């Protein structure tokens, strides 16, 4: 019996420009320190940044076999990721042992006590290709997509997950949650986590106490690269509408699952491959076919628009798109209701 998921009055949204992500994890730490410092959430990252091409976080997240949706958008049984092999345990370290050996002839180095199998961004900066010809990688910051048709909402037999009427933020009612983890299993983005101490599901709340005050989420505000834009989908004066609807350069991750993600990405452009003599070939290092496996066919026109506008700007012509993406005026990245707008001083 499917749930009737009412359409929210508005939908808050985020756009992330992957051409500007430094992989610095400031967003990850900003989120982690704010929301997930309890013992049962030690391994969980509502916001994570992974290196792609790579296995992602949790490992295998971009493998269609792990999610609760087929690539045609149908329901299939997903996987609850394992703490050791998919998320990676939060390791403990032998600090005392190492400190005690400071004056000893045989020093003991600091190392994890546990056998390390995986962790967030574990394959950092590995990427693919051969240096210097076509080696490549980029960073993919990820958070809950606060989907229009959330798989997690659909999966909960207790109806403990819902979309907020005011802004479409997807929230877990932890008083109702019994920790069955069908939501974890069903979400193909694997952005619902399980608090193994409190035995309830947890997920990104889009920093809703901040949103209610007109302040952008911590991951967006703390981003040194100024690559995140926050606003409402229907605000035609805002960056989200301009990037998603007008310029169509911001596209969702894995649209094939049919969940209607409300987090969008400006796909990464890349320098050209080199031929055997070291000359640029004109072919991008990041294979467009790989980007298509992440973002769908819409990545082609998105990249074309980005390249065309970049060329226009290089010719000295005006480009609203490039000006917006460069974020000359950072405050314009965040357009939340004016009556709630944060006063930055």
């Amino acid at each position, binding site marked *: *019996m499917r749930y009737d998921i009412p359409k929210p009055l508005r939908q808050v949204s985020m756009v992330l420009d992957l051409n500007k992500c430094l992989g610095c994890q400031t967003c990850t730490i900003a989120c982690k320190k704010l929301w997930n410092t309890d013992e049962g959430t030690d391994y969980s990252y509502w916001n994570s940044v992974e290196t792609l091409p790579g296995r992602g976080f949790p490992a295998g997240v971009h493998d269609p076999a792990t999610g609760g949706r087929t690539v045609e958008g149908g*329901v299939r049984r997903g996987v609850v990721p*394992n*703490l050791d092999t998919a998320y990676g345990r939060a390791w403990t370290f032998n600090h005392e042992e190492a400190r005690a050996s400071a004056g000893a002839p045989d020093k003991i180095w600091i190392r994890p006590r546990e056998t390390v199998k995986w962790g967030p961004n574990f394959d950092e900066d590995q990427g693919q290709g051969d240096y210097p010809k076509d080696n490549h990688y980029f960073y993919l910051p990820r958070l809950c997509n606060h989907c229009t048709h959330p798989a997690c909402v659909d*999966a909960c037999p*207790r109806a403990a997950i819902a979309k907020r009427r005011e802004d479409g933020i997807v929230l877990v009612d932890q008083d109702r949650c019994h920790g069955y983890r069908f939501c974890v299993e069903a979400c193909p983005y694997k952005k619902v986590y399980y608090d193994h101490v409190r035995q309830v599901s947890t997920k990104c709340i889009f920093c809703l106490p901040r949103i209610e005050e007109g302040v952008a989420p911590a991951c967006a505000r703390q981003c040194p690269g100024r690559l995140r834009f926050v606003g409402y989908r229907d605000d035609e004066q805002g960056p989200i509408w301009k990037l998603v609807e007008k310029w169509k350069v911001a596209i969702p991750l894995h649209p094939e699952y049919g969940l209607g993600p409300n987090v969008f990405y400006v796909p990464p452009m890349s320098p050209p491959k080199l031929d055997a003599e070291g000359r640029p070939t004109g072919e991008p290092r990041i294979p467009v076919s790989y980007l298509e496996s992440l973002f769908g066919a819409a990545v082609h026109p998105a990249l074309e628009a980005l390249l065309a506008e970049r060329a226009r700007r290089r010719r000295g012509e005006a480009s609203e798109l490039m000006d917006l993406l460069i974020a000359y005026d950072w405050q314009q990245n965040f357009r939340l209701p004016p009556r709630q707008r944060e006063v930055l001083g």
Partner: protein
Amino acid sequence: MNRKILLMSAPVAMQPGGYVPVAYADRTTPVTAAAEIAVEPGSGGWRVTLAWACPQPVRETVRETDRFADACAVFAPEAPESPWMTMGAQGLAVQGFLWRADRPGLWAIRAEGLGTMQRSAATGTQVSADWDNGRWRVVLSLPEWPALAAQRRVALAVWRGGAQERAGLKSVSAGWVDVA
């Protein structure tokens, strides 16, 4: 009353939401085929013993994300018409006691339909559970249980954690069982 009950797989097609009925549509055979149940009046209450085969027990789930504990529950109807397979209905509740292998005590539970179960600490109860030679044996010492005293019927559910059973993924008695 002391008898062996053949169990069935709880019908997943009626589970709430769009995911479980489709993703687990293949769960038509009960993971646990049968259970033994004994219900005896005790000193001011009841003693309920449940036993069933479980080749690989799951007792611990702490610090794990993908493990589910073995569990069992015994229910009684609050009203003569309280339906069992749907965990009661609005105004026709079922109530009982839930044991889970990763917890020390019992939960008192009550539901008025699928997805509505409320859990609370079961005061005045004791539980002992032993796994030996491929079988769980769980003894519930319960206080006065007016619903059972009035309706004289019980139903039971068994979850095998190793088979990822939780919530509506469970083996259940096909209906209420009379308590002599």
